[in-house]
């Protein structure tokens, strides 16, 4: 097993090196000296006026590995700086995004888990709620944005609302499914022991359905993290999504790439946290 892990790590490193190698090769300055000698004097003059001086080391295309590395170092060396609304450190932007995701997600938990419990326990409500859930579930959360902005009138809260609306469905459906498929025999044990409804919900149904509920929460968190970037691009102001959009307007591709990397890593960490929680509540039958 460990030897397999070692081999896998080695192959991963190889892939990374290959990727970086391709990046490096693709962004090499395009045979500069050969072309500059060939251009006419007037052309060189024109280039100089346009800031495209020969031999200045600037490339017009994709950032090189060196530029990328410099940006990463610079961003990580001072992640908390705040130079006004359009220039904040990456940690501050991330904090804003995580705050919105956290609030929207918790709100969704508070609604979806109790409601899912009720729906899961009552076949009547299950049928009654089903058409609404089926219609509302496939709606892109961003489609709610204009409505949210109009009614809430606060862009930051609208962002939270969008996270709420996209997190609520997987959790609701999974909770209802988990609760509805609790084994009959455990409920029978509870009834022969005359367990009161609240105690039955907390001591029998909740632990029995916990793995399914956690799966729903994990899916919700994944979606919420996808959606927050888009939502913040639309809403603006703060957050990692706004940072990406702002750096695109600055034409700072290195910062955009850096932000993409950060989004990926934070998303992975969030998912790992839920995987850990899932492991904790899973039981072997």
């Amino acid at each position, binding site marked *: 097993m460990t030897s397999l892990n070692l081999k896998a790590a080695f192959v991963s490193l190889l892939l990374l090196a290959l990727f970086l190698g391709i990046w490096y090769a693709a962004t090499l300055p395009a045979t500069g000296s050969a072309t500059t000698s060939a251009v006419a004097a007037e052309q060189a003059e024109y280039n100089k006026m346009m800031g495209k001086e020969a031999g200045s080391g600037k490339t017009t295309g994709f950032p090189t590995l060196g530029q990328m590395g410099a940006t990463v170092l610079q961003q990580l060396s001072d992640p908390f700086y705040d130079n006004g609304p359009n220039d904040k450190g990456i940690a501050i932007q991330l904090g804003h995004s995580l705050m919105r995701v956290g609030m929207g997600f918790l709100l969704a938990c508070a609604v979806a888990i109790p409601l899912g419990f009720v729906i899961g326990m009552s076949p009547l409500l299950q049928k009654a709620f089903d058409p609404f859930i089926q219609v509302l579930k496939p709606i892109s959360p961003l489609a709610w944005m204009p409505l949210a902005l109009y009614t809430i009138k606060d862009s930051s809260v609208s962002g939270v609302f969008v996270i709420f609306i996209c997190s609520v469905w997987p959790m609701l459906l999974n909770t209802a499914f988990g609760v509805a498929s609790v084994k009959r025999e455990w409920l029978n*044990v509870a009834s022969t022991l*005359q367990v009161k409804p609240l105690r039955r919900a907390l001591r029998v149904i909740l632990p029995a359905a916990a793995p399914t509920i956690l799966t729903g929460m994990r899916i919700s968190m994944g979606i919420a993290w996808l959606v927050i970037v888009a939502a913040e691009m639309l809403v603006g102001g703060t957050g990692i999504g706004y940072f990406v959009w702002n750096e695109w307007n600055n034409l700072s591709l290195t910062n955009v790439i850096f932000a993409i990397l950060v989004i990926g890593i934070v998303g992975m960490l969030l998912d790992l946290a839920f995987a850990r929680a899932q492991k904790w509540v899973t039981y072997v039958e």
Partner: protein
Amino acid sequence: MLNDGGGTVIVDSTRNPSQPWIPDPVRDDSKRGFLKVEGLSKSFVPAKPVFADVSFTLDKGEFVCIIGHSGCGKTTILNVLAGLDTATSGHVFMDGRELAGPSLERGVVFQSHALMPWLTVRKNIAFAVESRWPEWSRAEVDVHVEKFVAMVGLVAAIDKKPSQLSGGMKQRVGIARAFAILPKMLLLDEPFGALDALTRGTIQDELMAIVRQTQQTVFMITHDVDEAILLSDRILLMSNGREAPGGYLPGGIAEVVTNTLPRARTRAGLHHLPGYYELRNHIVDFLVTRAHAGDAH
């Protein structure tokens, strides 16, 4: 009435209530009729009850088994007694009061052991004990739990999860959980059906020892004729309902066999007891040739 050479087997039919009840000399009259089932029937399809007119009584401290083919409604009867299911008609009385819903006075051992897989053995039994005596302190609950875990010989496994236990051990926990709430009566739904023969034998002996010691009243479903003969004082033989030329005949209790083998019997010595084979043959014959409603007696 079946009367074999040894005169050890007494059979009476509930279909013929005029037949005199032959009292067991060990039982005294105050314990009579602890559980009374009167005219029970259950139909899933209207006018075609699975069983109808099922009446029997259990005395206090009596061990009664019910045998019948699949689909005859044994489990339904047990579920009605447990309060988990309702009969289409008929009544059940325990201690003179009519049953309404499940109760802590009746402990149930389920065929599939029904332990909560996320709880350890200790916590599974504690869950039942806390349900019975919510006012008890943790220490009191713990002492009680440990006593019943010791009773089924699982002290070493008390802090293990059910998934770490063998099938036999799980069923022992199920039995301990049912006994731990000190019910007035135990209902066992084919508790050893999923166990291998060796384990089954051991647990049967254990169960019998515990029942004898606690004077527990037990109603048990089984498919195993030897198990019924070993454990029970009386055996109810159930017939399946069927379509007869003259119309549908519901199933029901076709016969009640009283087990007159000495109460102090063991799995190992059972087949040496006089009268054992007559009793066994009688039940097997019933299951093979007469287990359908309307079959000639």
